[in-house]
């Protein structure tokens, strides 16, 4: 699951390398609000989960936090 999460992030953010668990909107320049919405939507579709609204508007959310949110799935 984490590997798929990394794939989605690398694809949508066009990253050359896997982001670290501590990476997030505050460390990756291209992770802007539009990219964030697309990431949330892609993860929800991929893992069949629905994130709470605060995730959509969060200024700071890390890869590890996203992994936790999809964990139950």
């Amino acid at each position, binding site marked *: 699951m984490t590997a798929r999460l990394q794939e989605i992030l690398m694809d949508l953010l*066009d990253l050359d390398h896997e982001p670290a668990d501590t990476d997030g*909107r*505050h460390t990756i*320049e*291209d992770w*802007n*609000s*539009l*990219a*964030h*919405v*697309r990431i*949330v*939507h892609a993860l*929800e*579709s991929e893992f069949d989960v629905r994130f709470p*609204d605060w995730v*959509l*508007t969060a*200024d700071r959310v890390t890869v590890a936090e996203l992994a936790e949110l999809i964990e139950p799935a």
Partner: protein
Amino acid sequence: MTGTVRFTDADVAAFADASHDHNPLHVDPAFARSTPFGRTVVHGALAGITALHRLGADIRGTRLLFQEPVFTDEPYTVVHDGRRVFLRGRGQVVLKAVPRTGTLSRPPAAASITPLHDPTIRTRPREHAEITPGMELTGRYEPRWDGLAALTGGPTTPAHLALAFGSYASGMVLPGRDGVLAEIDLRLYAPPSPHRPLGYRLRVENHDPRSRITTCSAVLTAEETPVAELRLCSFAGRRVERPTLDRVARFLPPGSGLTGRTVLVVGCSRGFGAALTLALLSQGAVVHGTYASSRPAAGAAGPHADRLRLHQADATDPAAMAKVLESITGNLTGVVLNATPPLRPIALSSEAAADARHHADQAIAAAMVPLSCALPKLNRTGHWALFVSTEAVTAPPAHWPHYITAKAAIEGLASWLAHNHAEVDTAVLRLPPMRTELTNTPTGHLNARAPEELAAAVVRRLLRQDWPSTPWSFPAEATIR
């Protein structure tokens, strides 16, 4: 490899003509002012074609990410790092072009919905009340070949054609009028026969009703042969309702508590300013409202229209504001400093510092100039000044350093007024996010409040003369929640 590029209004008009993408966000300044961008935006595909020149002519597949808006008459740097091409401006990447190979991935297919068909090229963008996965739209497409060739400075390549079509598909067909393109991922096949009409099939693959992000697949064909395949990701904006007296009345019943009072609202044309104007009118006040360019509909004031005086005046222009104040005869009970320049994201950096400072200068001037003009009329006990700020000053968003700087400065101006003109009741309104045209973004509406609700809360405080004992906080907790 680097270079610079600057787009002009003429470039945008020429691309609109060549691609048939006449979406008003690109070509209608009045419409564009009612969007979060505040002004017309360069077609992403036009910026993409510029970037493609740097990628090389033999590109068979490209992904273009439109990360921030591109505006005319602003400098952009084109950077080619050997694989990708970036367009940078205002301290951030606004567009990224990446060569791609392989086929486009497809999400699970949704059931098809009866196709809509455009037998001719559209001249007006479609408006969709609803977007549903599985929707299909078909039609004919043909750019103005000579116009496209003139823009690109050479023969029209399949990539140019596909990008022109992608722009048309998003801006005119789906999402259409309210669409903002976020990404084009394209794969090119056989070159089209020159100067022949093409066919297309667009299909909604995915639509997120919360954010209104829409993903469509598209196939462009020449005589049934695929020329290009595209995946288009767009934001389908919402219709934002302008404040109305009826909605104000849901939060504040009409009354007469402000009869005989005259209030100046600087920045009254939309959002909170428009709602506050209506709320003040609903309580009997005479309201002078200024607007920069978007004239408010006087009809919105309904039975109170005779107490509404509208002035087109740039709040940063001392002469214009002095003229507005001269026109106010008699007492001025209060002033609301609500004007602010359009807000665009800026990543603070040495290259963007001047842009950030310019925004802050304009925003501060939009409060300081009207206040300085109004002060002689306000300078007496029982009169008041409201400074509109934002609760974002306590949790500043990453790409708004200029906005937060400006609002903090405006709060400082309020502090100065409270200290040096204690006879004037002074308050800062740290407002939460509201559902306005400026927050018509994928997430801007989430947790946002109705401007009428907040305007009603402010006017209730005015009616109670509920001024706090601590300087410049209004209400006492400084933030209306």
